[in-house]
């Protein structure tokens, strides 16, 4: 069951909401509605659902409605229409008390400019969510301390936020959100105010935390790189509408429309595409059952001069060249194990194109993609160069 379900969620800013809503239902565009009624369409009939434990990224250009959408999810902004179901309960119908309870227990928010209280210490900031629930000081500070230790700030409990660097401040913001132990984290451009290196660290840390804590995270960003690194799925917004939802691969490889395509165009492919996108199906021979004759025959069939070797359990063992195989045949050697060579470079299926490029460059033999000791694919130099050049015929056959 999805943890968050959003149906036709709409927000119109302005006075003439009724008329704007009518125009919207008639299919008028954001610009037309602004001209006719003076109302701004913040979010236009957004629908999506998020699975527990998922990192759901919402991406779009400035003004596309990302911040509005995420604030609708905890009703910091009141929706004009539509439903917000959190664990099956409709947030949009809740009264003040129920809403406050949901905010306290189900979801926490991390802010772009950190949103820390400058007059409170790091510890008091992190404990704020429990403090407003009137939880005893000792207990809430214990929990806040644990959250702060988790983000590596165990030694800064009694500093004021102003004394910390940007990256550290956002860790406090993250710790404050984690102290409540909510199911859902809402993060509005949480890393956008940080400089690139720190930003990358924070992304890694978030992924680490996620792998141990299994929160559901709604992450807003306007940066495609960040979206691709973090997102299990990505929703792309334009003019308040969600124009595509999909895995990072979907978005990159099958852009739903011109808008998405243009968004994706400027992405540095070398950082995003990984081994699995460009690898080819490898030809292999079982060295436990086959001899040089079989190996040579397979190579002749496929028109290649080298074949990869696996054993009975399909573990990767190396490769056999055509030369060695015919030599062996002449000498009467029947066991392929005697002529297997192992001087081949291996990469992981998640190795980026960037890294593969330099490996392929100084390896005479094609690079293999190995996962759990199994041979998954082979990467030839041409494929790397082709992918870097922006050819989109990347292979997904091993998926």
């Amino acid at each position, binding site marked *: 069951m999805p943890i968050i379900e959003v149906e036709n969620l709409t927000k119109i800013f302005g006075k003439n909401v009724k008329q704007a809503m009518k125009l919207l239902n008639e299919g008028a565009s954001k610009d037309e509605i602004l001209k006719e009624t003076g109302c701004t369409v913040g979010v236009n009939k957004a629908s999506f659902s998020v699975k527990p434990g998922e990192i759901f990224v919402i991406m779009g250009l400035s003004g596309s409605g990302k911040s509005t959408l995420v604030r609708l999810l905890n009703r910091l902004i009141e929706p004009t229409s539509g439903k917000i179901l959190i664990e099956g309960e409709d947030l949009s119908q809740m009264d003040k008390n129920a809403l406050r*309870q949901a905010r306290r227990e189900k979801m926490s928010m991390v802010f772009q400019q950190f949103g820390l*209280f400058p*007059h409170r210490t790091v510890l008091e900031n992190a404990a*704020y969510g429990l403090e407003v629930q009137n939880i005893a000081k000792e207990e809430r500070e214990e929990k806040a301390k644990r959250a702060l230790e988790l983000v590596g700030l165990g030694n800064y409990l009694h500093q004021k936020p102003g004394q910390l660097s940007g990256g550290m401040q956002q860790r406090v913001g993250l710790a404050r959100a984690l102290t409540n132990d909510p199911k859902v984290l809402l993060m509005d451009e949480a890393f956008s105010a940080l400089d690139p290196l720190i930003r990358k660290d924070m992304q890694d840390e978030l992924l680490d935390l996620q792998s141990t804590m299994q929160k559901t995270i709604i992450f807003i960003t306007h940066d495609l790189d960040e979206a691709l690194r973090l997102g299990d799925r990505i929703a792309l917004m334009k003019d308040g509408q969600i124009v595509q939802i999909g895995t990072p691969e979907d978005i990159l490889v099958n852009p739903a429309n011109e808008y998405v395509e243009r968004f994706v165009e400027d992405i540095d492919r070398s950082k995003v595409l990984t081994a699995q996108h460009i690898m080819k199906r490898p030809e292999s021979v079982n060295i436990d059952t086959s001899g040089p004759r079989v190996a040579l025959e397979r190579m002749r069939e496929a028109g290649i001069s080298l074949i990869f070797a696996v054993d009975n359990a399909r573990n990767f063992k190396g490769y056999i060249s055509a030369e060695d195989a015919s030599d062996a045949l002449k000498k009467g050697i029947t066991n392929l194990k005697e002529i297997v060579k192992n001087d081949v470079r291996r990469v992981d299926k998640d190795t980026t194109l960037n890294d593969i490029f330099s490996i392929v460059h100084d390896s005479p033999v094609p690079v293999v993609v190995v996962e759990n000791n199994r041979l998954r694919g082979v990467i030839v130099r041409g494929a790397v160069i082709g992918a870097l050049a922006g050819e989109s015929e990347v292979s997904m056959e091993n998926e």
Partner: protein
Amino acid sequence: MNKLLSFIPEIPIADATDKVVDKITEIFAFIFDPISTHFGNFMEFFAEDFLMSIPPFIMILLVAILAFFVSGRKFGLAIFSIIGLWLIYNQDQWENLMYTVTLVLIASILSIVIGIPFGILISKSNLANIIIKPILDFMQTMPAFVYLIPAVAFFGIGMVPGVFASLIFAIPPTVRFTNLGIRQVPRELVEAADAFGSTGAQKLFKVELPMAKPTIMAGVNQTVMLALSMVVTASMIGAPGLGRDVLSALQRADVGTGFVAGIGIVILAIIIDRLTQGANRKKD
């Protein structure tokens, strides 16, 4: 042309005001009378039996110590306080000073106690803001001694009407700055308070007021200075203090006495101003 202007006969604003004030005096006499007696007694007690019972030497020392710490362990203000207060004592103005301090202190405390809640109200409600803002403008632009007339009607003469007039004159900055301070709290912080499930009161006391404090204190500082500036005016209706000497000197064209009392007011103003500003700065 003149005919056109006088087409409408004179509107009896003055009469109407008289009547309203009379009516209020009559109706609320049961409140005003005890206030002027008990409150008046209290202030006299505070000035005569409390402040004046403290030996001037000790008082000067206490103020100097306070000044030293409030100004961040610097000697400037402390030394100024010692010399200034001694000069007032030397000029035989000590009792007047104590009356003035009482007047300013009480008017300021009341202004703050009443003004801050109003400031909070208009920061939260745009309707209240629309209604109260022009009233504040009116209160500040009306010449101060106009307030003396209803003050006398309500409370007779003495310190109580003086406090009442000072209160009306001095309260606007506290209200305005409280409103401003709360409205200036960064949006993300208000959102953070809401997003973590604060109640309205929790948000106010844990986030908004602490964030607004420096701004509110700037308003309080102005309020105290305005209250002090009402001292001379209040003496017109019989409030004792430094102002009374200024006034009587004026009536007798006695430049010397007027100057001495005036100097006393200036010294007091400087000390109070630096003390309230310093108290604000220290918290940053």
